[in-house]
């Protein structure tokens, strides 16, 4: 039996711990415990001098176990493990006692808190004695990256990685990349044209030697783990041979069948064979089966007749492509809230109630009105109301603020003022103009003569009363700054609908084994300090799939996610956690309960060359959560570093009555 020599370090954490727990008393108590050779208290154990204390004590006192009683393992376990490793002590011989989150932060009675800290330290001392050295393993990291979603966040991430000469697969469900941003007219607060600034990036993606663009494609299945994911991509049938098509446009020019254009949010039509917009990347059309006469009635084939390159292929079927990547960046964007869910706003009831996105198309030079702001009957509006917070900041729909509406509402006001002689009412609850140049833009729009009314719109109606002018839309709202309910007659209403998580985000989260927040957006590892990673190693998130954000923030996140992917690529290997699950094949009966309960698909029951089925665990996938060990009916599964005797020793220690 080895001679156990333990060093115990009680951290003050400034006053975080020391103001409630008598740290000196705890250190003194620890020194009385069996096998404890050194016991100290120190102001900040995580500081360099704090760590040096551990390192020098290991050498000087020949320590073979170390305990730091401080914060949570999530905060500093890796710090202290590294300190031990630096002094040639196996990091798994280190143990943490949490006397901050689990003690000083939740108790007020100093005496009882000190007693509890002693208990926690005693439990750690018993446990650390039974801990065993473990070895971490490293495996190679596949340098290819999959990016899902070709909006501005995905495009930015793809270019960052590809420019570093690493392969990117960019998968986009629509026929072209561009996302929501390509539908916008001018962008706040600088008023540069969205298409003008995005199309160069789209073209760069389309021609980049390191980017394999897969549009009109979706992720079908994901297996593997960080550094080694296998992903099956469904390439939906375009009915156009991509390698033959030169994008001449003859097919869509000759196609006689029309459908509402998704790109123009239904305000214009496209053909049954189409590219979503003129600058589409790739410039290769798809056939929409729901509107193509050949698919509906068995005849037409006009596109085929006129295609000089014989690129039309009515027999095409969905194809599946398997790719291998080391990491994945999800940049799947957002859905717009359906404003017709709030009937009192009259969207889809009254012709001249528009959404912000419809306004963007109307205002765009390439849009259905050639950039003219006009009512459905073609008249120029004399008055326009812009309604904020439609489905945002409202517990009946979405409780959160959608973050972009105040600013694009201001931009809408500016564009109306710029292009028409209309009176503009900006109806808001709170103006949130927090970004670079945003407050200045707010001031500019005030200066342009826009009227601001503070209140949440109650109703939009065409029922005029008294001497109100018939034919107008009446916007009913309390101006809360003067405390009076107003009825504003206007010609046009522009609603600012909430940004919501994608309708298929639950499905996508399941495929990539990540979580969503209560509001449906993907959950980041840490909201402040780790915003583009997820708790699943190797799966990164960027842009609006993580929460509503504007273009600058989406671009920043796209680049940040790329940087995280590049750092993993640059390291070239993945370190596997040693505290993982292990199956004793002599005890395993191959029942498969472990397979059922594992959230990470780590255990697999197979014959493995033997006469009976047994389970084995893929250590790269295992997170050491212990679900399988609990579920295993024969006790065949052990989690290294969390063996029953190790845990029970703590329970025993805590159960002892102290004098």
């Amino acid at each position: 039996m080895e001679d156990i020599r333990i060093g115990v370090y009680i951290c003050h954490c400034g006053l975080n711990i020391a103001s409630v727990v008598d740290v000196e008393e705890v250190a003194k108590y620890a020194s009385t415990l069996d096998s404890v050779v050194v016991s100290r208290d120190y102001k900040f154990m995580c500081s360099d001098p704090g760590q040096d204390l551990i390192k020098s004590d290991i050498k000087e006192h020949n320590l073979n176990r170390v305990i730091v009683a401080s914060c949570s393992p999530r905060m500093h376990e890796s710090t202290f493990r590294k300190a031990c490793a630096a002094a040639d002590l196996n990091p798994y011989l280190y143990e943490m006692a949490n006397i901050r989150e689990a003690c000083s932060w939740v108790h007020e009675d100093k005496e009882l808190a000190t007693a509890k800290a002693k208990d926690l330290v005693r439990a750690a001392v018993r446990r650390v004695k039974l801990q065993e050295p473990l070895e971490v393993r490293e495996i190679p990291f596949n340098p290819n990256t999959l990016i899902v979603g070709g909006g501005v966040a995905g495009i930015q991430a793809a270019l960052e990685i590809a420019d570093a000469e690493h392969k990117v697969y960019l998968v986009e469900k629509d026929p072209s990349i561009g996302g929501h941003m390509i539908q916008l007219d001018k962008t706040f607060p600088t008023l540069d044209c969205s298409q003008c600034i995005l199309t160069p990036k789209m073209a760069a993606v389309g021609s980049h030697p390191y980017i394999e663009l897969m549009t009109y494609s979706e992720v079908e299945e994901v297996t593997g783990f960080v550094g080694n994911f296998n992903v099956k991509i469904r390439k939906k049938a375009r009915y156009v041979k991509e390698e033959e098509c030169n994008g001449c446009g003859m097919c869509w020019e000759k196609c006689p069948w029309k459908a509402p254009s998704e790109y123009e949010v239904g305000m214009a039509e496209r053909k049954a064979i189409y590219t979503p917009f003129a600058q589409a990347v790739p410039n290769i059309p798809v056939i929409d089966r729901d509107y193509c006469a050949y698919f509906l009635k068995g005849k037409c084939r006009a596109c085929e007749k006129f295609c000089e390159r014989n690129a039309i292929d009515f027999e095409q079927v969905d194809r599946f492509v398997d790719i291998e990547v080391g990491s994945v960046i999800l940049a799947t964007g957002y859905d717009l809230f359906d404003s017709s869910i709030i009937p009192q706003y009259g969207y889809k009831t009254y012709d001249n109630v528009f959404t912000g996105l419809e306004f963007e198309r109307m205002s765009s030079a390439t849009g259905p009105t050639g950039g003219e702001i006009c009512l459905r009957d073609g008249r120029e509006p004399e008055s326009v109301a812009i309604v904020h917070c439609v489905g945002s900041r409202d517990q009946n729909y979405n409780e959160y603020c959608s973050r972009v509406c105040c600013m694009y509402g201001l931009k809408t006001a500016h564009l109306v003022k710029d292009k028409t002689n209309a009176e503009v009412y900006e109806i808001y609850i709170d103006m949130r103009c927090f970004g670079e140049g945003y407050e200045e833009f707010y001031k500019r729009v005030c200066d342009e003569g826009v009227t601001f009314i503070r209140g949440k719109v109650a109703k939009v109606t065409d029922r005029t009363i008294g001497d109100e002018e018939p034919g107008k839309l009446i916007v009913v709202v309390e101006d809360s700054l003067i405390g009076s309910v107003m009825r504003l007659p206007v010609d046009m209403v522009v609603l600012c609908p909430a940004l919501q998580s994608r309708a298929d985000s639950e499905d996508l989260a399941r495929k990539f084994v990540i979580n969503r927040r209560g509001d449906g957006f993907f959950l980041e590892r840490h909201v402040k300090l780790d915003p583009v990673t997820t708790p699943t190693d190797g799966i990164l998130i960027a842009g609006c799939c993580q929460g509503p954000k504007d273009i600058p923030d989406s671009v920043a996140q796209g680049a940040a996610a790329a940087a995280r992917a590049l750092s993993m690529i640059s390291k070239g290997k993945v370190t596997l956690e040693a505290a993982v699950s292990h199956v004793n094949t002599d005890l395993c009966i191959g029942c498969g309960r472990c397979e059922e309960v594992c959230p990470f698909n780590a255990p697999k029951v197979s014959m493995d060359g033997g006469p009976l089925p047994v389970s084995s665990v893929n250590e790269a996938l295992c997170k050491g959560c212990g679900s399988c060990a609990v579920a295993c009916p024969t006790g065949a599964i052990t989690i290294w570093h969390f063996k029953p005797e190790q845990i029970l020793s703590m329970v025993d220690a805590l159960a002892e009555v102290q004098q």
Partner: protein
Amino acid sequence: MVQAVTPYQEAVDIVKEAGGEAFKLCYQCGLCSGTCPWNLVRSFIVRRLMHETQLGVVDFEDEDIWLCATCNACVSVCPRGVEIIDVMKSLRNVVAEVGAAKVPDSLRITTKTISAAGNPQGEDREKRGEWAENAGVKPFTQDSELLYFSCCVPAYDPKVRRIALATSSILQNVGVTFGILGAKESCCGESVRKAGNETIFQGLAEDNIKAFEESGVKKILVSSPHCYHTFKNEYPELGGNFEVVHSTQYLAELIRDGKLKFSKEINKKVAYHDPCYLGRHNNIYDEPREVLKSIPGLELIELPDNREQALCCGGGGGRIWMETKKEERFSDIRLEQALEVGADILVIACPYCMLNFDDSVLTMGKSDVIEIKDITELVQEAI
């Protein structure tokens, strides 16, 4: 003069104690004011009242405290889920029971009457069952399937009595065994509670619960959505658990089961007015329409504001006992809406609505162009 902005904690505490915790979440968007029907006829800034409550600077003398008809239009859209009616109720409670100011005379007298006589008309308890005597309606016994609780208004008011008569006639027609408790019944107390008189409400509720339990009542059929609301959602707090069904629900069920059949046509254009306590408070929108649609010949038309957005008649929250100026009556606006869509009959499903609309028809001189009927009256005519 600068007003002290230091929150007047005592006032806030009194409101909180009276059950109005809900105002804390208000972020002052004013959607309540914009939604409130009062602003069709005069200014009533609900939002300001919420903020005054937050700061503890409510003027309890202000008549605004007594305006809310508790129609629930604001609560159902409030983005912060503020239970505005609860706040109104507690502000009134501070006046009525803590004595912070004077309760308007008509309301004070009516609640006093209800407390003493068990009904707002101040009629003799013993006469509560008088309407039923010539209608062959029997007292409730252990063998009765249903207790029919008519509400005080049809029981005592000769003009509204037709609701109780039509309902009992339909029940007799389909062969349901039912009865009434007559003198043992008291006002349900719903509006009493909304008017801030929590103690009187509890007394009424306890009396009713005791009477129902002693008589062995299991299932109650009601004509008033106000009785429905309090029996179903509020009596359980006081230990009264009964199966409660509104006449429109019951009729729809009889029609669905084939127990109620029509033999006559009613060739009229009929508009249905959603009572607040049936619709917005209890989500019953479809059953009344289902009943009306099944009447042969009847053409059901919708009013401009219907279902969730129905305009209140003005009679909830104790307003039925208070005088409303002629030019401020919501029921007048509603009646105009009904005339505008060309309705021959405006159908209601609530005795308070009947009082208000009958009055509007008379004062607006429209009795030759439109009739006000309870849904049960139309059903009875078509049988």
